[in-house]
């Protein structure tokens, strides 16, 4: 990573070079990939250096000039170096979105999108993982705030986060089955809201424990 850091463009230069752009007129839409400037080239170069030359970023700019970058990482192993490269660019982890699109599921794959803020621009790094035995490295050593994102990811989906410092459940009760987003779990069970016999059994069991 030392080599990467030395050759990476300075963040301040990237921002300075990213001159304000004229907002697009209504109904005008820039085709994806046509918008290029120093900031976007710099981010793409840093990612390619860190995660492999085949890593490419597609940029979109909306009518107000707000930029989003979309990058599919070539492998799960590329996530950690790519995340380090984003941190070097003063990126902030904004959100983690795991999901199971039907098309990916048919291919035996799943996806996790990591969204980063780069001073107003949003960069999304998507990793493609196998459906079974999916594992990703924890990003908590690089982004402290990834802690809760990864805990939520682990409890909702069948994904193992390797190296998470505190892999407890975050929101869900420990009596619920693992990965409810990948199973048919009744909604009232999922939210612990069923008022049937199961709930009363639980209340009575709790009372017995208290006694």
């Amino acid at each position, binding site marked *: 990573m030392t080599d990467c850091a030395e050759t990476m463009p300075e963040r301040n230069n990237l921002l300075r070079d990213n001159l304000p752009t004229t907002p697009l007129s209504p109904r005008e*839409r820039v085709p994806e990939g046509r918008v290029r400037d120093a900031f976007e080239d710099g981010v793409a170069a840093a990612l390619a250096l860190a995660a492999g030359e085949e890593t490419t970023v597609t940029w979109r700019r909306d009518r*107000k000039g707000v930029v989003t970058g979309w990058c599919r990482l070539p492998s799960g192993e590329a996530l950690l170096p790519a995340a380090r490269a984003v941190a070097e660019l003063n990126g902030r982890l904004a*959100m983690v979105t795991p999901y199971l*699109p039907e098309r990916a599921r048919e291919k035996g794959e799943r996806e996790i999108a990591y969204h980063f803020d780069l001073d*107003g621009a949003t960069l999304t790094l998507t990793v493609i993982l196998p459906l079974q035995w999916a594992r990703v490295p924890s990003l908590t050593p690089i982004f402290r*705030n990834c802690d809760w994102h990864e805990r939520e990811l682990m409890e909702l989906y069948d994904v193992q986060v390797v190296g998470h410092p505190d892999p407890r*459940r975050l*929101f869900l009760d420990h009596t619920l089955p693992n990965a409810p987003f990948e199973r048919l779990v009744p909604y009232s069970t999922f*939210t612990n809201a069923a008022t049937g016999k199961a709930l009363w059994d639980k209340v009575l069991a709790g009372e017995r424990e208290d006694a």
Partner: protein
Amino acid sequence: MTTKIIELGPHQLALEEPMYFRVRLEGDRVADLDVMPGQVHRGMEHLVMRRNLYQNITLLERLCSLCSNSHPSTFCTAVEEVAGIVIPPRAEYLRAVADEIKRIASHLFCCAVQANAIGEIPLFRRVMEIREIMQRAKEAIYGNRMDLAANVIGGVRYDLTPEAVAYLYQAMEDMKKPLDELYLQFANNPALMARMAWVGVLPREAAVECAVVGPVARACGIDYDVRKKSPYGAYDRLDFEVATQTAGDVRARNLVRLAEARQSVSLIEQCLAQLPAGPLCADTLPEIPAGEAIAKSEAPRGELMYYLRTDGSDFPVRLKWRVPSYMNWDALKVMLKGEPVANIPLIVNSIDPCIACTDR
């Protein structure tokens, strides 16, 4: 020094929603903290994938009461981005008006709750009285005191008649002096200074590390406001300064909120003055194609982010959102460290926590 672990719930913390803390004390000072969320987890990310995009506007408005306009408006922006829908200029301004009315009411509620937490009951009443001007405005214009039902995909579903514009102008005029007085009081009142200044300090470096957003970040000198950094709607045509402080304490967080409330008054006046004529909503909506989009907005508590992925049907493949409170909880570990137990309720309320939003 004795080490003790205590558990605190909403009753002890003066929270109106359930959140629990396991606090490790060294003597009477906080040494460590574990936040235990999930008490109001409603599985909403599960529900949104089983409702169509139009039904989700209604559902998302019920996610949280205080930022109930930010959720549907940001979600609609994500759908509009996927489908390439351009909303009419009048709708952009009307969305900003709704957002800013909610921001003033939300910020004042937070300041009132903190006054209550330190036993300043007359101040609590005064702040809530001032907030009532905004509550009445919401009721008069939108027909409801909390959920405004202002947004649809492609625009808004309410209009401001000339009479409503005049009413709002008067309401904004009525807010100015009380807001200025409140700012001075939170800045200089010795009783408030004694409880709020140098209390619950979050240094700037820790704020960056915890990735906090909104007034919590801006009170540490982080000059980040989505309305400036990633302009949306009418904000690229409105004039305002990002309110920042540098002390990073409870007082600084409140001063940022009160300065923003005052700015929101100006933003609403600018919207009313610039309000263009024209339709409220795109006349025809295209089919929503397969695609993905990010939409962000500055909710009262900070950056709100939505990610939408569609497959060409009316149902989202994935709809994920991250609320500003999500990261702000972690910063409490820094703010509370070394603080006496008596300061816990005030400091917890000073991040303006939203539990319904966090748990979803």
